[in-house]
């Protein structure tokens, strides 16, 4: 079946003002560039003629590319005032040429200038940021209403979904969060001891680690991990449901997607975040205690006694008070981004990235606001 492959070519025979151009070989996609080059050469080597006959009888194989090139050639010659005719076309080649001829190529839109593109991009981003804010607030409102509905009719609430989410977020998330805060507790204690030792104030490392872990570190690490683990999962789950019209299916069945998908997830986060923050705090303090013992030479009894005297209930509760708010921030952003997924796989990826990045950013912003708030009420 594979015959000898003949590369495409042409031969010109002149006869006064008339030229016969005999095309031969395979005019197919396999000879792409060669065909394009032939099409450029041909009018040049043809020179001045009044009539040209394209004899395509010698073409062994012809596909859409070949036909297109021949069609463009005859157009080009025609626009230079040469009358072109095609001869000796085999029946199947003639149909193909006919099919290609009736269709003219679309003209590509001229590209816009770089500057305008950049300006348009900036404008679009600003508008989107504004829309994000409005949508976020209205979404939280919707969630509050949905939670209210669930409180009024608890029998309609999706307990199974809530428990399932709690398992995913809290139970499966706990080990890695505990490990990370344990390690960070160790590192902060080591650094504290190393720096404070120069002032002979090693004992103050307990104050340092205790306050920073309980007030900030445990919560922030927790929130960042949860945004990365669970926020991304929410966005991907809701987003792929959106892509496959499953959200629309819920709607037409009279089910509110916020009730079904969002509320169980956000409630699970609100319950899980304080638990995880507590576990993280304990792990951090444990790590700090171990480091203080082995690296700083502070005995565990001393560490615990000092911890008891410097840490009061306020420091402990600051972290836990912030936890549910972080849960709402992470959950709301993840669910909104999930709902924003468009039809393509690329858009799913973009929204998951946006979900994690925005959630972590907002967690830090909200944490900063809380710090100012607690400082001003001297809590």
């Amino acid at each position, binding site marked *: 079946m594979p015959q000898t492959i003949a590369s495409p070519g042409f031969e010109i025979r002149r006869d006064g003002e008339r030229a016969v151009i005999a095309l031969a070989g395979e005019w197919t996609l396999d000879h792409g560039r060669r065909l394009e080059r032939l099409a450029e050469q041909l009018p040049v080597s043809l020179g001045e003629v009044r009539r040209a006959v394209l004899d395509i009888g010698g073409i062994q194989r012809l596909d*859409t590319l070949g036909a297109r090139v021949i069609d463009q050639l005859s157009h080009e010659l025609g626009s230079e005032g040469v009358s072109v005719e095609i001869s000796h076309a085999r029946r199947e080649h003639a149909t193909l040429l006919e099919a290609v001829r009736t*269709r003219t190529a679309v003209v590509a839109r001229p590209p816009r200038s770089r500057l305008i593109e950049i300006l348009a991009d900036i404008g679009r981003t600003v508008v989107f940021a504004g829309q994000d804010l409005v949508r976020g607030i209205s979404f939280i409102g919707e969630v509050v209403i949905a939670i209210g509905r669930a409180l009024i009719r608890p029998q309609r609430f999706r307990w199974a979904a809530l428990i399932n989410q709690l398992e995913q977020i809290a139970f499966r998330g706990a080990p890695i969060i505990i490990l990370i805060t344990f390690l960070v507790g160790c590192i902060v204690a080591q650094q504290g001891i190393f720096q404070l030792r120069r002032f002979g104030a090693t004992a103050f490392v307990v104050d340092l680690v205790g306050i920073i872990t309980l007030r900030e570190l445990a919560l922030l690490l927790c929130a960042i991990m949860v945004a990365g683990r669970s926020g991304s999962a929410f966005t991907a789950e809701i987003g792929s449901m959106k892509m496959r019209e499953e959200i629309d299916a819920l709607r037409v069945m009279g089910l509110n997607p916020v009730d079904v998908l969002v509320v169980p997830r956000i409630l699970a986060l609100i319950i899980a975040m304080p638990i995880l923050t507590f576990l993280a705090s304990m792990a951090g303090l444990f790590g700090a205690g171990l480091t203080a013992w082995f690296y700083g030479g502070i005995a565990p009894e001393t560490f615990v006694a000092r911890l008891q005297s410097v840490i009061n209930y306020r420091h402990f509760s600051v972290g836990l008070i912030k936890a549910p708010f972080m849960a709402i921030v992470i959950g709301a952003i993840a669910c909104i981004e999930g709902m924003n997924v468009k*039809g393509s796989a690329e858009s799913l990826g973009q929204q998951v990235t946006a979900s994690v990045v925005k959630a972590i950013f907002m967690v830090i912003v909200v944490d900063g606001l809380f710090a100012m708030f607690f400082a001003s009420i001297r809590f």
Partner: protein
Amino acid sequence: MPDATQPLAVPDTAALPKPIIQVRDLVVGFGDKIILDGLSLDVMAGEILGFVGGSGTGKSVLTRTILGLIEKRAGHISVFGQDLDEMPDAERRKLEKRWGVMFQHGALFSSLTVAQNIQVPMREYLDLSPAMMNDLAALKIQMVGLKSDAGEKHPSELSGGMIKRAALARALALDPEIVFLDEPTSGLDPIGAAEFDVLIRTLQQTLGLTVFMVTHDLDSLASACDRIAALADRKVVAVGSLSEMVASPHPWVKSYFRGERALARLKG
């Protein structure tokens, strides 16, 4: 090129030139379940073969096995006279240029526009200038009956019928010799489906294609297909023209082609 892999006589007597796809004694299964058992089928060069069968009987499995997406347990498949098992990878890649596949749900790449989708195989396999590639993509888009502005759209912006057409355009990107169509008219309204049948016919004649078409659609079978093969009891139980199918004694084929819906349609 006669060789040891094709000792069997062709089961049907249609006087078509040569088989372009030959399937012999194919066995395919998943786990304990045997889907296809001893299936043999010939697809002749230049024909449109309609492949029918009940839901879940393995029509798509056969297509996917021929395409190499599913492993077979036994049997031989040869395409263009070459056995797929004995083919080195380089040959196999060359072969894949010579067939195009239109999946049931289009399987267009969702993050690319229609024109970019069509250019994916072109970029991979061909040496062409970008301008010529755009031109060819636009040509294919128009050949399958889409408006020229469809090229800039993403698959999520297309209707079901447009997705089918775009998928067909992508299948035709490399001017293949064989085109596999998996339920090309499913999900289309009768007018759209009829247009699609005509389109497949026209393209087949213009481009000299061989078409292997899995379908449920009696209208497609009647209007577009040269021959029909029916799958039941894990093998091909009948092959032939529509009138031969109607005359077939096999119970499933009988109920399919002589059921009320079928008779009403075939009469009209």
